[in-house]
């Protein structure tokens, strides 16, 4: 019952992303990037772990993620072509003020908390626990995204094919966690799973909070622009910024120079 409510809520919340071609394109691209990040991180993790069997699984998992990245990228490209979306505009709405090629914030979550070198920060058991939680969540999310793309068989097939791999990822990480439990490391496993879930939930709350705050702040700033700043703007239009050669601003004394903001 509870699961059904969660799924319905997720569908309602995320339908807009998949109905808007530009957002859908951007989301497919961002999934490609997170899958690729995840793949790279798993490659690194595979080199760090001591257990050869776990290493083999992580290597296969890495290959899956990198393949998923290619699948998402190709689907994004063909979707853009089908809908006449200009190449290279995928991330433009999220670009910061400066000219910058930095990754925009993700609109939806895929494997959103892979970071470079995570295994070094977490440790082996904690890393596998984090993978397990992430993959289970990804399987749930991708099921929703598949269903929300019922009218787009190509995108639906992308999620369908990736879901098959996710089941394997959940299974092998679960096997290792069970094995460590049998070896008497149950409390460690439970703690790691708990922390991974908490971290995920906290990330989701932060993302939701940030998104709401950003939306609200944008509206406030837009209103400010047309009210409070309007006279200043009109005044600024009359005054051109200086052109041509200018004298440099006098530098403060050396001791104060670095502190000046």
């Amino acid at each position, binding site marked *: 019952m509870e699961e059904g409510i969660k799924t319905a809520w997720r569908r309602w919340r995320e339908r807009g992303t998949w109905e808007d071609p530009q957002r859908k394109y951007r989301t497919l691209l961002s999934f490609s*990037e997170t899958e*690729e*990040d995840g793949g*790279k991180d798993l*490659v*690194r993790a595979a*080199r760090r772990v001591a257990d050869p069997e776990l290493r083999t699984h992580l290597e296969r998992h890495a290959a899956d993620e990198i393949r998923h990245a290619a699948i998402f990228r190709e689907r994004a490209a063909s979707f853009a072509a089908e809908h006449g979306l*200009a*190449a*290279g*505009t995928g991330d*433009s*709405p999220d*670009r*910061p*003020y*400066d*000219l*910058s*090629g*930095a*990754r925009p914030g993700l609109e939806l979550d895929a494997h959103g908390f892979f970071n*470079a*070198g995570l295994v070094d920060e977490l440790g082996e058991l904690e890393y596998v626990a984090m993978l397990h939680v992430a993959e289970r969540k990804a399987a749930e999310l991708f099921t929703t995204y598949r269903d929300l793309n019922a009218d787009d068989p190509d995108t639906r097939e992308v999620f369908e094919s990736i879901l098959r791999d996710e089941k394997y990822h959940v299974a092998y990480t679960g096997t290792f966690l069970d094995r460590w439990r049998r070896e008497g490391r149950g409390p460690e496993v439970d703690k790691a799973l708990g922390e991974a879930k908490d971290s995920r939930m906290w990330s989701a709350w932060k993302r939701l909070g940030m998104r709401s705050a*950003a939306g609200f*702040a*944008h*509206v406030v*700033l*837009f209103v400010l*622009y*047309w009210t409070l*700043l*309007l006279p*200043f*703007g*009109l005044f*600024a*239009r009359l*005054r*051109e*910024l*200086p*052109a*041509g*050669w*200018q*004298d*440099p601003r006098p530098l403060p004394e*050396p*001791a104060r*120079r*670095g*502190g*000046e*903001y």
Partner: protein
Amino acid sequence: MRVLGLSAFHRDSAAALVADGEVVAAAQEERYTGVLVDSSFPRRAARACLDAAGLTAGELDAVVFYEKPLRKFERVLAAQLGAFPRSSRAFAKGMFLWLGDRLWLRTRIADELSVAPDRVAFVEHQRAHAAAAFFGSPLERAAVLTLDDAGEWATVALARAEGARLETLKEIGFPHSLGLWYSAFAQFLGLEPGLDEARLEVLAAHGTPRLRDEVAGTLPARPDGSFLVDERLFRFPYDAERLCDDRLGERVGAPRPPGDPLRMAGDDTRDADLAASVQAVLEDRVLALVARLRELAPGEDALCLGGELARNRALVARVVADGGFDRVFVPPVPGEPGAALGAALEYVTAVAGGPRPAPLVRAAWGESVDVRAEEGARSLGGADEAPREVARRLDRGQGVAWVRGALELGPESCSTRLLLGPADGPGARAGLLERVQRADPLAPVRVAVSAERAAEHFAVPAACPEAVRRGQVALAARSDAARAVSLPDGRAWAQVVDAELDPGLHAALAARADAPLALVTDFHLRSQAIVRSEADAVEAFQRSALDALVVEDRVYARD
């Protein structure tokens, strides 16, 4: 004194550590995140620098950011208001970013790196570029010119430097920016601003500047050597996403939509001609700046050239040829990553009164290749064998990746993360790039030649030996062999390799007496960052169609 310089939030972010007057480590965030031109806060790069020096953040005397946030905010706000009401959308987005994050940079740096806020310092952006250009040079005194996008207000700075003293003489202020004007034309031609300026330069080499007058009208020259950006034609003063106004199309023709075929060969060379015109106007304006600098700094016979535009090889060549200076120095990393180093050097010399570092010869200050070989490696029997192995494979017409030593700072690799191929005719360039999934007629490729054979193949200027050795200047081809692999304008991005600077690459080139030229570019796959570790290199090799990968004293080969 231990000072960490940082650059971030505009093109490539980086960190550089200067300790006791010497550069001990420098790293670029992109290499760690894999995100091209990553401009996010360089926490991984900073950590790599501290690890390399065996330091903790608490042991730093200062962390120096490469611009002054409050002054930059003042400029952003003034430009937004000046564009009222066209800036209404960009204002909300820009201000949100500034009010929520950028204005509180001291706190953010302190939190990210766990240093005390009073150890966080800020230097002016153009001074960071100028410091990178002069303090890293072997010159005792010089005139200094920085050509950049924008920092706080200044976009161009003329300076004079002597010893550990750097004096700014004149500046040109935002929005009159050569760097942003050039990036705007990159976007107008369907390229990615902030990423594809080098491709725009390659495109320019395919055309003729028949639209020079029209383009010159977008950037009028003033009699005093300065210039103006025609603000009616560009949106970059207030909008970072759409840099050009629709009215620009009325002046120079319609923009090229991204993804459309490039008009650069055959009957229709309009895109290449526009790029060539942009390049020609850029060079004209910069020569006027150089002339003004010579008036303001009479008696100086050396010039240090810094900022993003100092990466433009054709521009450097023009300044060397027509600028009137006997000596021209371009720092190893003239763009934004190099400004992280410049910020640290400016703080050490100007604020703390410390000494200048020894001249910066190479940019290889990053982490070294792992000691442990990956699966599939075959030992070559010694590091001396690596150049011979590379030469043998080039003789057989193979494409070889060569990874050795420390990672370089900057958007290019000129030594330690290379991809090499034989320079055997006009198709060689495309053939090499196809093997690494980079089939792109605009991808920059250099032509390497040993110092002893350089004069046979290229017109090598004597005024800029460091730039020539690092492949930072376009050289005119002299021989048929060089012409066959040069760009259509008869010039190549040549790299003259000497035995002192890069003994390994020199030995590989010298071993091929009958074929002294080789094609060289950075080792990475399409849309990916330059490889960092041996594991990254092996992964890229496996996904490529290259014949071999040489890493230190071992080889991974398909045969």
